[in-house]
C-alpha cells in the first residue's frame, strides 16, 4: 500500500539568468498528506506548476505513478488532479456545467462519478447556480470537485485554505485527511503557514530559496523545534544554573529560552531550590520564522 506515486528528481528551473529552483528531490507515497512549506517567494508555486505540466523544468524529472510528465503527459495527467492558486472556474457557467466541461476532457468518463464527486464536496444544493454567485469556500470546494473528476491518485493543492474563514479551513482540513485516509490518495499541500501544515500533514518538505532544507515527519520537525520560555528572577543566576543542564538563550525580553525537554520539571526544581523565583514557564510553538532561523542557521526568510 505504500507505493510511490509522485517522485521528483533533480528538478531545476532557470528563468533568464536567475535559477529559481535549484534542484529538488523528494518522493510521495500513497495515502499520505505531504506538506510543502515555505515562505512566499521560496519557489513553491513554480514547483507545483512544474509538477502539473504548466511550466517546463530546465532539468530533472517528475514521475506521476511512474509516468514522466514530460514524455507521457496524457497518462501522467490522468492520475493527477490539482488546483493551482485560486480555483478559477468559468464564472458564467453553472457549477455543473463547469464540471461537465472538465469531464469532457477526460477519456471514457463515467457520468455517475460526476454525481458522486458533487456529493463528496457537498455542493448538491447549489450545483446548478452560476459560479459567479458562489462564495469563496464554495468555489474552493468546486475546485476540489473538478480536481477529483479524473479519479486521480495524486492530488496537488496550492494554498487550499487561502482566503477561507476558520470554519472553512477546518472543513478543508478534515476533507483532505478524509481523502488521504479513506480514498488512499496522495495529497500534496503547499502552505506558508506552519500551523496549517502541522494540523493536516504527515510529512513535510521545508523549502527556501529554491532548495529543500529538510524533509521529515511533522512530529519530528516540531519536537525538535519546540521550546520553553522561562520567566525568572534573578535572570543571571537562573541562566547560569540552567546552563549546567542544557543550552540557554537570553532573549530581548530578558527571558530564558531552552529546548523543550522531559527534564523541565527537574530543571524547575533545581532553580527553586537554589533560590531563583520561577514566575512562569511557557511552552512556545515556534513560528515559521523561528524554524527557518533554526534550519538555515540564521539566514533570514526575506
Amino acid at each position: 500500500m505504500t507505493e510511490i506515486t509522485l517522485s521528483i528528481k533533480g528538478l531545476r528551473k532557470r528563468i533568464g539568468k536567475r535559477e529559481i529552483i535549484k534542484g529538488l528531490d523528494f518522493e510521495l507515497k500513497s495515502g499520505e498528506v505531504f506538506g510543502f512549506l515555505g515562505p512566499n517567494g521560496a519557489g513553491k508555486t513554480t514547483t507545483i506548476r512544474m509538477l502539473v505540466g504548466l511550466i517546463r523544468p530546465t532539468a530533472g524529472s517528475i514521475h506521476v505513478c511512474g509516468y514522466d510528465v514530460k514524455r507521457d503527459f496524457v497518462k501522467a495527467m490522468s492520475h493527477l488532479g490539482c488546483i493551482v492558486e485560486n480555483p478559477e472556474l468559468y464564472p458564467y457557467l453553472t457549477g455543473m456545467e463547469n464540471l461537465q466541461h472538465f469531464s469532457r476532457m477526460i477519456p471514457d468518463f463515467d457520468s455517475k462519478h460526476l454525481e458522486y464527486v458533487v456529493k463528496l464536496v457537498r455542493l448538491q444544493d447549489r450545483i446548478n447556480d452560476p459560479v459567479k454567485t458562489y462564495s469563496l469556500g464554495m468555489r474552493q470546494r468546486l475546485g476540489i470537485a473538478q480536481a477529483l473528476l479524473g479519479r486521480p491518485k495524486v492530488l496537488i493543492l496550492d494554498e487550499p485554505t487561502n482566503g477561507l474563514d476558520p470554519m472553512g479551513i477546518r472543513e478543508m482540513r478534515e476533507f483532505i485527511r478524509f481523502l488521504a485516509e479513506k480514498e488512499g490518495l496522495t495529497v500534496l499541500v503547499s502552505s506558508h503557514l506552519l500551523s496549517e501544515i502541522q494540523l493536516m500533514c504527515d510529512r513535510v518538505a521545508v523549502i527556501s530559496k529554491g532548495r529543500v532544507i529538510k524533509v521529515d515527519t511533522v512530529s519530528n520537525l516540531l519536537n525538535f523545534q519546540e521550546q520553553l520560555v522561562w520567566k525568572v528572577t534573578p535572570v543571571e543566576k537562573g541562566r547560569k544554573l540552567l546552563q549546567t543542564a542544557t543550552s540557554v538563550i537570553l532573549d530581548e525580553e530578558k527571558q530564558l529560552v531552552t529546548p523543550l525537554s522531559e527534564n523541565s520539571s527537574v530543571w524547575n526544581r533545581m532553580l527553586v531550590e537554589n533560590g531563583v523565583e520561577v514566575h512562569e514557564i511557557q511552552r512556545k510553538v515556534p513560528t515559521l520564522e523561528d524554524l527557518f532561523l533554526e534550519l538555515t542557521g540564521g539566514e533570514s526568510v526575506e
Partner: protein
Amino acid sequence: MNKLIHNEMLKIIRKRKLIVVIAIMAVLISLFTYAQFREVQRQIEKLGDVDWRTTLQQQIVDTQNRLTSSGISDEWKAQLQIRVQQQQYYLDNNINPAEPGAPTFVRSFAQESITLFVPLLIMIVAADIVSSERSAGTVKLLLTRPVKRWKILLSKYVALLLSISIIVVLMGLLAYVISGVVFGFGGWKAPILTGFTSIGGELNTSHVQLIDQWQYILMEFGLVWFVAIVVGTLSFMLSVLLKSTSASMGVMLAALIAGLILSNLVSSWQSAKYLFMINLDLTGYLAGSSPPVPGMTLLFSIGVLAVWAVIALFVSFSVFVRQDVY
C-alpha cells in the same frame, strides 16, 4: 476531439459572444437599410422618375465630373475611371447593376463590409478566445487535463472557424430579412456582371461573365468568409501571444485601419501588396474595381492572405505548446 470542440462552442455561446455580434449586425444593417431607403427617396425627388438607366446615367455624369476636379489622387482617379467605364458597360448591355430588392442590398452590403465591419465582428470572438482563459486563470485548469495542448488549441480554432461561419451566414440572412422588409425580397435571378479586370487604368471586359445575382452573392460570401477566417486566425495568434484581450484587439484594429488608409496611397509602393491588410478587399475583384497596387489579382490576394494565415497558425501552435503558464 468533438467533446473539446463542444466545450469551446459552449464557452463562446455562454459568454454571449454570438448574441452581441448578432445584435451589432442587426442594428447596423437596419441603419444602412434606412440610409439606402433615404437615398432612393432622394433620387425619386431629384429625377422625377426612377428608371434605373436614368439614375445610372446620372451617376456616370457625376463620376465624370468628380474625375475632372483637381486635387484628386491618382489612385482615386484610377478607381473612378474604372467605375465609369464599368457603369457604361452595364448601361450599354442594358443590365441594371442595382436591381432593387433585398438581394442587391445583401450584395452591396457584403462588398462594403469586407474590409472593416466583418473583421471587427470576428475580432469580438477571436481576440479573447485564448487570452480570456489566460487573464481569468482558467487556462491552468484547462492545461492540466489529460489532453495534449495542441488538441486544446485546435479545438479552440475549430470552434472559432465554426463561429465565423455562422456569423457570416447570419449576416447575410439578417441583411436579407431586414432590407427585404423595405425593398422587397425578390431579385435573386437578376443578372450581374463579373470578371472585369483593369489593365493600366483601362477596363478590360474580355472575361466578363453574366451570372445570376444569387450566384454572385454566394461567391461574394465565400470571399467574405475567407477574409473573416484570415482575420480570425491573425487575431487568434495575437490572442495566444498577448495576455490582454484589449491589446490584441488594439493591434488588430490598428492593422485594419492602416490597411484602409494604405489602400488609397500605395499604388506606387509595389511591395505593399504583400501586407495582409491591403489584400482584404476580395469582393472588389469580383465587382471589378481597380486594385490598390496595379497587377494584384484575386488569386494573388487569396494567396497572400493564405500565407499570412498559415504562418499565424504555425506561430500560434508552436508558441502555445511550449509556453510556460504562470
